């Protein structure tokens, strides 16, 4: 195993003076499923953005496969809470976007889209427009589009945040399975502690702003785990409780009325 993403003393101060994160040192191994938790505004999205090369750190550097990230890092793919599907394209049309950009032929695209629809469980919905789909189905469509251009690293920013519990569990299971079979490295930001424990091989805990890494917890759960029955697993419950204890002070501070 080799580190695919390395943060070296990374800090980010925005032009408006907000110091989002500072002193970040972290190595993400290839094939890892890393979850990131922390109070809101602690810079979780910021570190994903720097990994994708959407902006540069103001201190230190982010290395991707040993090279500093200086521009758009197209070996990574992004998925956010908002699915950003194009409303004027059908589901199939949305999934085809990266394939069209890559200049693939019509026939090839059609075949590839069918394969991806099957992969995410959307067979028969290719001709629907995004507005005609449920939230969960839209997420699947966004996931299929992400997989269409086959980035080796998936950057996921609270992707299942807006879904109901059952839909979220279904998608978590599917994501976990797909990433294992496709060998993806995943950097998964969430504000949901249970989700962070359930999905992560490692869980990175952030302090409140300016965000620094408070702790990296390596999961005691096996990498191959049954998310359906996880809630009955005492090791899982213990890890959730541990993470709660670590985060509680920061969350309390956030809720206190004195906060500026």
């Amino acid at each position, binding site marked *: 195993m080799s580190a695919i993403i390395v943060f070296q003393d990374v800090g980010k101060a925005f032009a408006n003076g907000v110091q989002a994160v500072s002193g970040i040192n972290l190595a993400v191994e290839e094939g890892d499923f890393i979850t990131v938790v922390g109070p809101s505004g602690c810079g979780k999205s910021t570190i994903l953005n720097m990994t994708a090369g959407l902006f540069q750190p103001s201190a230190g550097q982010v290395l991707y496969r040993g090279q500093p990230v200086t521009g758009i890092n197209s070996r990574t*793919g992004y998925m956010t809470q908002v699915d950003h599907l*194009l409303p004027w394209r059908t589901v199939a049309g949305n999934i085809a976007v990266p394939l069209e950009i890559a200049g693939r032929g019509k026939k090839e695209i059609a075949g590839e889209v069918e394969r991806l629809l099957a992969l995410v469980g959307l067979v028969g919905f290719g001709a629907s427009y995004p*507005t005609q789909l449920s939230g969960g189905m839209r997420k699947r469509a966004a996931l299929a589009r992400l997989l269409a251009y086959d980035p080796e690293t998936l950057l996921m920013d609270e992707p299942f945040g807006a879904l109901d519990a059952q839909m979220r569990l279904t998608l978590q299971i599917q994501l976990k399975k797909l990433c294992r079979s496709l060998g993806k490295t995943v950097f998964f930001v969430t504000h949901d502690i249970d989700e962070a424990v359930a999905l992560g091989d490692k869980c990175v805990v952030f302090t409140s702003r300016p965000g620094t890494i408070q702790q990296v917890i390596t999961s005691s759960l096996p990498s191959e785990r049954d998310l359906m029955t996880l809630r009955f697993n005492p090791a899982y419950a213990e890890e959730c409780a541990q993470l709660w204890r670590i985060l509680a002070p920061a969350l309390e501070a956030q809720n206190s009325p004195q906060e500026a």
Partner: protein
Amino acid sequence: MVLVLQLALAVVLLTAWQFLSPALDMVFFISTPQAIAESFIGLARSGSLLFHAGITTLEAGLGFLLGGGAGMFAGVLLGRNKLLSDVLQPFLTAFYSLPKAALGPLFILWFGIGLNMKILLAATIVFFIVFLNTFRGVREVSPEQIAILRLMNAKERHLLTKVILPSAIVWVFAGLRLSVPYALIGAIVGEIIASNRGLGYLLSYSASRFDTAGTFAALGAIVILALILNKILDISERRLMPWRVSDAGREIVV
């Protein structure tokens, strides 16, 4: 149901007009529906209505296409180029605040009193409306959406064809829709100030002869023309934006 009520309302209004106008001794000012209809039919029979309407349609239509096309082009160009739009912004604002119809006399100096002058007057008015809407539409495209496409290795040309133009088109159509009456204003004002053809000419000619019925008939023809242009826009909008139809078919849920 709505249609029935609408028809009933129209009948009531027309009847009231027909009888109150002579009763209040207002025929000179507002004529009567019957006289207007007769005048309209007379104009239509003689072919002069079609002739004048054709001229106005040509001017407004070409002005609309010219101004709309230029407006879209400029909107996309400036929408995607921050420096250019920042530099041009004060000039555009100054020009925008000018009532475009006031350019009529200048345009007569430059382009004469022929069709060109009306086409360009209509185009100038339409240009600004479409430009501003397109610009807004291009600027409204979410930066995250663009970032996601860039991660897919999208070049500017992909961004334009796959995201920016399709997402701006809703705004463009809003601008075009808004422009229809203005294109007519451009053409008609042009005709009123200098012409011997077109519905604007018919309007001012009838009015100058104290022919109220003829004036109203010309106004009616202008309204019909505007409705037809709107309908054409409706149809092309539906053709170009099929996903909106699927939106409309959706039931409202909270």
